[in-house]
């Protein structure tokens, strides 16, 4: 069964450093998403991406964040200058239609020191 994969599974970085989180969505899916979950809190929407552009973004997704689909298979989330409060689990998801089921990857746990 096809699945969403994410790398790395864990990343530790220093405050102010740039990080890139990588995702490989399910191959025939067209819609891509990033969510995050701060420890002990609920899952929050960050951004959705379709047809090579952002469809919607939340208030969390400020200028420090960017997304890219650099090739036909990868979908990346870049945090330009990490802050302590960016420490969270970041989930990538994909779906094959607009309001269809979103399938989630296993997540990347980011720790900013």
């Amino acid at each position, binding site marked *: 069964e096809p699945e969403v994969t994410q790398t790395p599974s864990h990343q530790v970085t220093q405050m102010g450093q740039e990080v890139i989180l990588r995702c490989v969505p399910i191959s025939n899916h067209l819609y891509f998403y990033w969510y995050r979950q701060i420890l002990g809190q609920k899952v*929050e*929407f960050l951004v959705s991406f379709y047809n090579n552009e952002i469809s919607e973004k939340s208030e969390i997704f400020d200028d420090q964040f960017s997304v890219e689909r650099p090739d036909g298979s990868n979908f990346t989330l870049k945090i330009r200058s990490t802050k302590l409060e960016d420490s969270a689990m970041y989930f990538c998801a994909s779906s094959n239609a607009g309001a269809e089921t*979103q399938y989630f990857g296993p997540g990347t746990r980011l720790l900013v020191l």
Partner: protein
Amino acid sequence: AQSVTQPDIHITVSEGASLELRCNYSYGATPYLFWYVQSPGQGLQLLLKYFSGDTLVQGIKGFEAEFKRSQSSFNLRKPSVHWSDAAEYFCAVVSTGGGNKLTFGTGTQLKVEL
């Protein structure tokens, strides 16, 4: 704005007992509703979804959920809980316009006593 409420933060049940996890939503149009499960340190696995049609939907692992428009609810049920069901359960609603974002509830942590 859409929202999802899961009133129970923690629930403890005995193995073999029945289970009901509550979910209430607020959404202006017909909602598309989901239940996801998250085991410790794991990602989110889809249990079931409701888009339209029969208001009682069946999912994986013996779970079912009933959509009640009059009560704005989408409660998750299982007739007999197994110890492996211990996990966190999230109800979610998707917006059908724009970016299709999922709005999650705060989750219910299920503990199963043997």
